[in-house]
């Protein structure tokens, strides 16, 4: 007699739980076992990242002949400027079959709703994992799924391998960031039976350093910086918040709470070089964000700060942070001579 028994993936954990009560069994889980990722790369290079994963279901002898029909899902956390959706190919091998992965349709919703209802996969991963280990919110989750679906039996133990090939540095910038990886099946999504052993997994790679960019811009999201600018990407016609971290390292300004932005030089798109913006007034005063935070910030509108007309724009500026006298200066890496640099741009 033909069996119509059909168990949804999300029921796997229930069966696991039942089995745990009576029958000695193992667990159901999906896990990233190993990440093989280069530590360095050059802008324009296509790098290969290998993930070794484990998918295990073990829910006793109840063989339903096909409990879950689902696609493999892979998420990668990459810099927004890399356009990873267009510059990545993913293939996989597994005991269930080999194949390619395609971009998850932007309208496809994460099925479990465990982190919020009606969220796309990208939204759900962003909500759950944020920006991974990165220090700056300029990375994004890009999600793929296998073009083929597979029937996952009640008792399997397989080791799918994913091969991710990504052309790095589409923005032509030097970048240091922490990639992250997520795997799941398209049926269960972020649904979990056991929080310590869920049917999905996220893992963080080490800092990936990409050099060779021609723009002169460095996005370092791995290492804390003395100064940061928020939003990390902006143009001169919007408010930017520049924050100086006076606790990160011992510098000539350590312990000083009266700090100022000193712009040595600003450069406009039409070739003008602006000077005389190193002054210590309320306009350039970096104010401590909260008491004793050690973080001092100034939000300003460069267009107005540099006295530009509506048709002029600033492309970059170099600066120091100074004390009230202007005599004690701190620049890049704590240097008293080498300035910090900020380059405006959206990519």
């Amino acid at each position, binding site marked *: 007699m033909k069996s119509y028994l059909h168990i949804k993936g999300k029921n796997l954990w229930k069966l696991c739980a039942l089995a745990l009560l009576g029958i000695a069994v193992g667990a159901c889980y999906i896990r990233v076992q190993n990440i093989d990722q280069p530590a360095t790369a050059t802008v324009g290079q296509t790098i290969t990242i290998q993930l070794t994963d484990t998918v295990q279901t073990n829910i006793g002898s109840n063989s339903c002949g096909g409990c879950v029909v689902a696609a493999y899902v892979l998420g990668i956390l990459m810099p*927004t400027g890399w356009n990873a959706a267009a510059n990545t190919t993913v293939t996989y091998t597994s005991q269930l079959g080999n194949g390619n992965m395609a971009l998850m349709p932007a309208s496809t919703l994460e099925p479990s709703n465990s982190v919020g209802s009606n969220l796309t996969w990208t939204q759900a991963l962003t909500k759950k994992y944020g920006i991974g280990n990165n220090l700056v919110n300029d990375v994004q989750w890009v999600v793929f799924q296998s073009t083929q679906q597979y029937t996952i039996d009640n008792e399997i133990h397989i080791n799918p391998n994913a091969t991710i090939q990504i052309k790095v540095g589409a923005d032509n910038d030097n970048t240091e960031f922490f990639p992250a990886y997520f795997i799941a099946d398209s049926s269960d999504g972020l649904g979990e039976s056991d929080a310590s052993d869920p049917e999905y997994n996220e893992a963080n790679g080490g800092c990936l350093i990409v050099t060779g960019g021609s723009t002169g811009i460095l996005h370092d999201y791995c290492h804390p910086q003395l100064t940061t600018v928020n939003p990390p*990407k902006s*143009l001169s*016609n*919007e408010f930017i918040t520049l924050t100086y971290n006076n606790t990160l390292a011992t510098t000539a300004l350590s312990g000083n709470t009266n700090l100022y932005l000193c712009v040595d030089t600003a450069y406009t798109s039409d070739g003008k070089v602006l000077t005389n913006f190193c002054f210590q007034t*309320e306009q350039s005063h970096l104010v401590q964000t909260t008491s004793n935070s050690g973080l001092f910030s100034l939000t*300003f*509108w460069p267009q107005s700060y540099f006295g530009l007309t509506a048709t002029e724009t600033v492309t970059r500026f170099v600066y120091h942070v100074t004390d009230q006298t202007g005599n004690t200066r701190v620049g890049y890496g704590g240097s008293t001579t080498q300035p910090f640099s900020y380059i405006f*741009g959206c990519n």
Partner: protein
Amino acid sequence: MKKFNKIIFPLGILFMFAWMSCKTDKINGIAEPVKDITGSWKIVKATRNGTDLFSLLDTNYYNLNKFRVDFNEGKYTLVNPLPFIVSENGTYALDNPQFPFKITFTQTTGSTTPVSTAFTYPIVNGVRTLTLVFSPGCPENTYSYTLVKVN
């Protein structure tokens, strides 16, 4: 024939009266008023990527309270400019005067390419507000200004 006289005829009369008693009233719909935004508007709430800008800015240099956009007879004027949809004065238009979904600004100097943004015009606590969402710089950075008319 007797049956007709006794039952059907009175019933017919009854239905006729019933039908005649029903009169279709012509519904006088109240026309949706034209959304008139003429006047001077000031910012009461401003966010950048969801973060409140009022608490971030030193009011001595960037006083959001002093910003004005004046709408008058199809023209707008910016007073004490801030990052906005447009940087220079020009003309504006609503896509539909009664049910506007979009407002379009066109500078008369500089870039004269029209710039449109969603137009939301709710009444909040009895006060008509105008919320404009836009990106003055990078498209990833979203600003939202909520304006009220200056009395």
